[in-house]
């Protein structure tokens, strides 16, 4: 059976503040065995997906994620990703994965120079067999909350992203100045995912939508395609 018994690890940096929300998304919303992994740990333990949650890892006064990439646990995440392990960064997690070189590009301050918290309409790109408009629908609605979500990448990098279909989501109404409206990307190999929007904030019955559950499933389905059939 696809996905049954999948284990989820949610990283906890000292300034993570969406760790419990991410825990709830996977542990509560999807009902999967989920546990936290502390930033000072050097091993991830047995896991099928590493979630790097949102927040302000180490305060991020310097540059979001710039310090987090040097934390003990990130060495383990790097090795895990190199072995093909599934990694999903949300907001600050996306920033950390970019800083760590696990995802291409970088996130700089919003063009408005202000923090933005609002629900975004996102166009779903045809990226992987599980992450595409046929699975998720053409447009989904998920909140963002960040001051540095303005995605940047050089021209050659951008060309590679597009050629390899690495863009996962694009903003319908760009809230932060991101290049080509990019809201989320994956690595070339297809095992590391990152996005600025917060799927954990689109999961409960009173949230703006429940599209976040579908996004979480789509990421997991990279490794466990049965998960999509289960819920289709």
């Amino acid at each position, binding site marked *: 059976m696809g996905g049954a018994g999948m284990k989820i690890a949610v990283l906890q940096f000292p300034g993570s*503040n969406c760790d419990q929300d991410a825990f709830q998304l996977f542990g509560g919303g999807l009902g999967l065995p989920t546990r936290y992994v502390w930033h000072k740990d050097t091993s991830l333990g047995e896991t099928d997906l590493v979630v790097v949650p949102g927040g302000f890892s180490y*305060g991020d006064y310097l540059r979001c994620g710039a310090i987090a990439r040097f934390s003990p646990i990130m060495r383990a995440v790097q090795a895990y990703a190199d072995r093909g392990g599934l990694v999903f960064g949300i907001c600050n997690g996306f920033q950390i994965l970019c800083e760590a070189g696990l995802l291409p590009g970088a996130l700089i301050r919003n*063009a408005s120079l202000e*923090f933005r*918290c609002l629900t975004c309409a996102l166009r779903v790109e045809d990226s992987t067999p599980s992450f595409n408009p046929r699975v998720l629908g053409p447009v989904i609605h998920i909140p963002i909350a960040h001051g540095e979500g303005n995605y940047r990448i050089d021209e050659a990098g951008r060309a590679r992203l597009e050629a390899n279909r690495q863009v996962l989501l694009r903003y319908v109404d760009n809230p932060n100045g991101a290049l080509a409206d990019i809201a989320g990307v994956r690595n070339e190999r297809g095992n590391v995912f990152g996005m600025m929007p917060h799927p*954990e904030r689109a999961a*409960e019955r*009173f949230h703006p939508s429940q599209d976040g559950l579908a996004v979480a499933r789509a990421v997991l389905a990279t490794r466990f395609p049965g998960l999509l059939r289960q819920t289709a």
Partner: protein
Amino acid sequence: MPAAPLPLNPDPLLNAPITPELVKRHGLLPEEYAVIGRTLDRTPTLTELGIFSVMWSEHCSYKNTRPLLKGFPTEKRGPTAAFGRVLVKAGEENAGIIDIGDGWAIAFKIESHNHPSAVEPFEGAATGVGGIIRDIFTMGARPVLLTNSLRFGELTSPATKRLLRGVVAGIAHYGNCVGVPTVGGDVYFDACYEGNPLVNALCLGTLRHDQIRRGAATGLGNPVYYVGAATGRDGLGGAAFASKELSQESAGDRPAVQKGDPFMEKLLIEACLEMMAVPGLVVGIQDMGAAGLTCSTCETASRGGSGIEIELDQVPQRETGMNSYEIMLSESQERMLVIVPLGREREIEAVFAKWDLHAALVGHVTATGRMVVKHHGITVADIPAGALTDAAPVYQREAREGAAPILARAWTPAAAAVPDLDGPGAQAALPRLLGHPTIASKRWIYRQYDHMVQHGTAVGPGSDAAVVRLRLGAGEKFIAISNDCNGRYCYLNPHRGALIAMVECLRNVVCSGATPLAMTDNLNFGNPYKPENFHQLRECVRGLAEACRFFDVPVVGGNVSLYNESPEGAIDPTPTVAIVGLIEDEAHITRQFVGAAGERLILLGGAPHELGGSQFLGLIHGLKTGDAPAVDLPGEKRLQDFLLAQIKAARVRAAHDLSEGGLLVAVAEMLFVPPVADGAAPPVFGASLDLAILGAVPRRDALLFGESQGRVVLAVAPADAAPVMAAAAAAGVAAAELGGVTTDPVLAVRSGAWAVRWPVGELRRAWETTIEEAMKRPGLG
């Protein structure tokens, strides 16, 4: 024979003789200085003078307001319900605590950071948020939401824009980083706040009854720990700074403004909650807020009926060469004082080591009743702890109403020859009112706040009250929160204005489907030594207390901020009220937005008929006159009970109370349904109203834009209109079916032959774009 003097301070600077000038510069009166001398039975050291000056400042001692505050009900009269009992009363601890049932409770409190924000808006507002969060988690509660209450001058002034930008960015910086959602608030723009903005921040946290912690130092010999950030010279004497008027020279007080580090606060929250989860590890805990180390040591000792002795050499310091005066008076942020049982030192140290935070053993609990401070082994202060807290002086100031409000209140529209509105006048007035920043959409502000983190926000900013789901162990509950105060009413009629602040806030909470639980207040006033200001303070407190008693809504704590004056004079009295309610069933959550064409619009409470103190008079006629609208407490209670019963009976699709701008503003706001996503096209509705049903009215402007209290507009399904009308009649609540929601995007209002139509899109643009346009920065996306 007087007591022997203390030894010389290791810092020669602190051995300067105490002159009357020095006493005055510490904000102490000669008679207060005399009391200090009698208390100590000797001349105080300079360090002690500093300690007394901050503890006896208005900010810490409430010396001018304590007798007034005694009038507040601090307990629920009953009957004891399944929830609502007061577990920790106002004034006992850093924040009050209310039972919400099933063994769970909430702690909440509002606090001001007005003066720091006036001088340094970003850091002032940021540290205001940090301070109130510490007040909540020091009680053992996990902070789960923030709101704020802001007042600025008119948005046309560049100074206001600078303050608004800085304050909002500061609140966002701090709240977003610590991961506590800012779910709501209220913002007014009025010339009286020019130069003296108000920044009041509220925090609410959740805890189990058995998790309540107290700020008392008990147990002879128990170690006293200092945890959190190191001490610097920032915020020196901030409490004293908050207790004087702002002047041209206030910019020179910038060192008195603290600097916040929300990341440090986040670590401190987690470490403290982890520590408090260890059974029996915390004997007492208190944050170092105003008056820092001074306040936390003497208050915990005073509450515990004990004494405390500390050695300043052990205090973590981030600057070299700090003397005892500086260390004791520093208001460096993100610090706490913790008392643990003797022998369990390693356990607390392990928790803080995990979070890479200081946990320094700075002293121990004594039985002397004294606060003894040593520096380099030399005693630099030795004061009875109770003298600093309970023996602080108390004054009954002179109260006399000023002439200007009496004159303004006596005004009536007929006397001033203000012509009633004709059609074109009404046509022009509505978009102007909707476009005034006090009424206009606050989206520019709240989109900068993370209002969704902790993923419990069910109704975010922009409705009558915010609704948040609390996750409580395996269960959950929903609460509603709203804060409010119209300073203009309080200026014209302080007693009524305060009643209105209460009943309107209650109405907002009830409109969202909640049963009100308790209230916290922030009293923002001018210099209490001026009789006209003290009159306002006294009358407002009387009004709040009266309404609290009438509705059996206890006060669980709050804050007093006096000296809110700029060179132009005092602010309008602003007793900001925040009320929390419990929503018993998720299905009761009600918003202010209509849902479908065909819904019927019902006005509860009768035709508005008063113009006094209205936004309409101010904006359209340039008048700040007339009496504040009348308040009928029994009628208001009937209305709110009826409304809640109808919500519980699932007959209410939307409910919105009439406030600034009156009936048409309220109906327009109900039509401004938020889009599903930012930038998406919102659902478009219109409404058709026939006001003839309300009968003949003396003035049309008062009907359309007056701010009579006790009014709510409901949207109900067509089939529910008749039952709601019948129930209203049975409950003795005036109700009138004014019309319905249409697909035609027009607000059409008629009364007999008189008719006006507004395209809803135009109204919405006026309402949506005001603040955004005013705050636009050229060249930025």
